[in-house]
């Protein structure tokens, strides 16, 4: 009861524009503090106005520097900015050094750039939930642009940028021969590519290779075309979250025919930033006009609901396993050939299944 009251105040203060409240709400989200779900629920109706941009790329690509300059330009136009920078945490101690703030030099002392560091905290798949919720907090607070910055190293990180309307991938020059370009991974998720540090040797070649790659995935021979389209639609497919989306026809309403753009930037000098922002805006406009912005949001919410349900159901099952004597006991019975894993799973699920059927 008490916690509820405190949270109501927090929501009120956040909506009233108190930075401290916004910061505290994000902490509660990160900590999965008691009552945080209710908090996020209350914020939801105040969200939906921000444009969310994901920035990813290998370490050292210059993401933070570019984000700093982006935030600065947006501010010059009178828009407010929220930034969430995700850094890895130690798998051994859980500790982390979150160093991206250092590079936010252009926005020092400007509270309307709200920069928040988040650590991965070793969550299994939970990080993207926490990030999505933190984005909601910034959105409800009234930020016009929200930038999510993360190292594009693995599945978790790619999940995070899925929260964004537009995903930009930063590629440093000479970051690989054409074999690297062929490899699957972050290159497939980009709506926009920025070859940063474009003043370095090899920048032209990297731009060239990226363009070729994009060209190939767009217009390969007929056999390739469908997979090419798939790669291309990766932009929209990625929103669908893999399995269980039979509803959407392959070439249904979700026609994503945006051709990824390649921009050259020298973030440190601020060069190319304006052009980069222009392309991001173009992409957003494309999403709006094609109606994809809404379709994608819907798909995202569907996926969010699924994720929550999966987590909740698995928590329920953990409780049920405990109630039935614990997982070790069950495993022992399987080991003794008294039963088998399928039967055990059936037994554990039975009460839940019965309950749902009776409804």
């Amino acid at each position, binding site marked *: 009861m008490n916690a509820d009251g405190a949270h109501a105040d927090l929501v009120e203060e956040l909506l009233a524009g108190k930075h401290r409240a916004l910061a505290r709400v994000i902490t509660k989200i990160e900590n999965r503090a008691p009552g945080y779900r209710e908090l996020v629920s209350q914020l939801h109706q105040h969200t939906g106005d921000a444009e969310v941009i994901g920035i990813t790329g290998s370490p050292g690509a210059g993401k933070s520097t570019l984000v700093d300059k982006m935030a600065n330009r947006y501010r010059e136009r009178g828009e407010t900015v929220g930034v969430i920078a995700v850094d890895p945490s130690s798998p051994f101690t859980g500790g982390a050094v979150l160093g991206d703030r250092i590079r936010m030099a252009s926005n020092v002392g400007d509270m309307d750039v709200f920069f928040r560091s988040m650590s991965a905290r070793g969550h299994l798949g939970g990080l993207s939930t926490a990030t999505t919720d933190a984005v909601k907090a910034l959105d409800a607070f009234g930020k016009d642009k929200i930038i999510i910055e993360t190292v594009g190293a693995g599945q978790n990180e790619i999940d995070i940028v899925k929260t964004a309307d537009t995903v930009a991938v930063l590629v440093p020059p000479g970051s690989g021969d054409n074999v690297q370009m062929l490899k699957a991974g972050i290159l497939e998720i980009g709506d926009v590519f920025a070859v940063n540090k474009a003043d370095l040797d090899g920048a032209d070649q990297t731009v060239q290779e990226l363009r070729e790659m994009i060209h190939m995935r767009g217009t390969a021979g007929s056999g390739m075309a469908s997979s090419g389209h798939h790669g291309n639609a990766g932009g929209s497919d990625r929103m669908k979250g893999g399995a269980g989306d039979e509803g959407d026809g392959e070439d249904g309403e979700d026609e994503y025919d945006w051709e990824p753009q390649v921009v050259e930037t020298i973030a440190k000098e601020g060069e190319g930033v304006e052009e980069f922002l222009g392309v991001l805006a173009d992409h957003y406009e494309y999403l709006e006009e094609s109606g994809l912005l809404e379709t994608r949001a819907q798909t995202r919410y569907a996926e969010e609901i699924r994720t929550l349900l999966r987590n*909740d159901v698995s928590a329920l099952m953990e409780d049920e396993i405990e109630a039935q004597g614990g997982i070790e006991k069950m495993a022992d019975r399987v080991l003794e050939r008294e039963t088998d894993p399928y039967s055990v799973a059936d037994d554990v699920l039975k009460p839940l299944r019965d309950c749902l059927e009776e409804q």
Partner: protein
Amino acid sequence: MSADSQQQSIRCLVAKVGLDGHDRGAHVIARAFRDAGFEVVYSGLHNAPDEIVQAAVQEDVNVLGISILSGAHNTLVPKIIDGLKEYDAFEDTLVLVGGVVPDDDKEELKEMGVAEVFGPGTPMEETIEFVRENAPER
């Protein structure tokens, strides 16, 4: 494990304020904090009090560690504390100072609201233990 299980973590801002350009000590403490399992936000060199306040508020840190070697603590620390108060962030932030601070000034800083001052040669474990025991809850 459900992704919903609570995950508290001690968050610290390690800040270099003012003009001194020597941050070896700040690096060492940042790393030690990380190894202790804390989440450390490092501010970089040459921060103004404003910047420190902005970072501490936005990052919602439980602990603010200010490293000063220049002797300017008497002018800089009060500014930071006032800034934290302005954002209602002073009450639940543990403020620590590290560096070369004369005994008289130490007392003054503590009266101002600094929880502890760690001079040169303080064993890292002592600082970490102090943080573990005194970091305010979130």
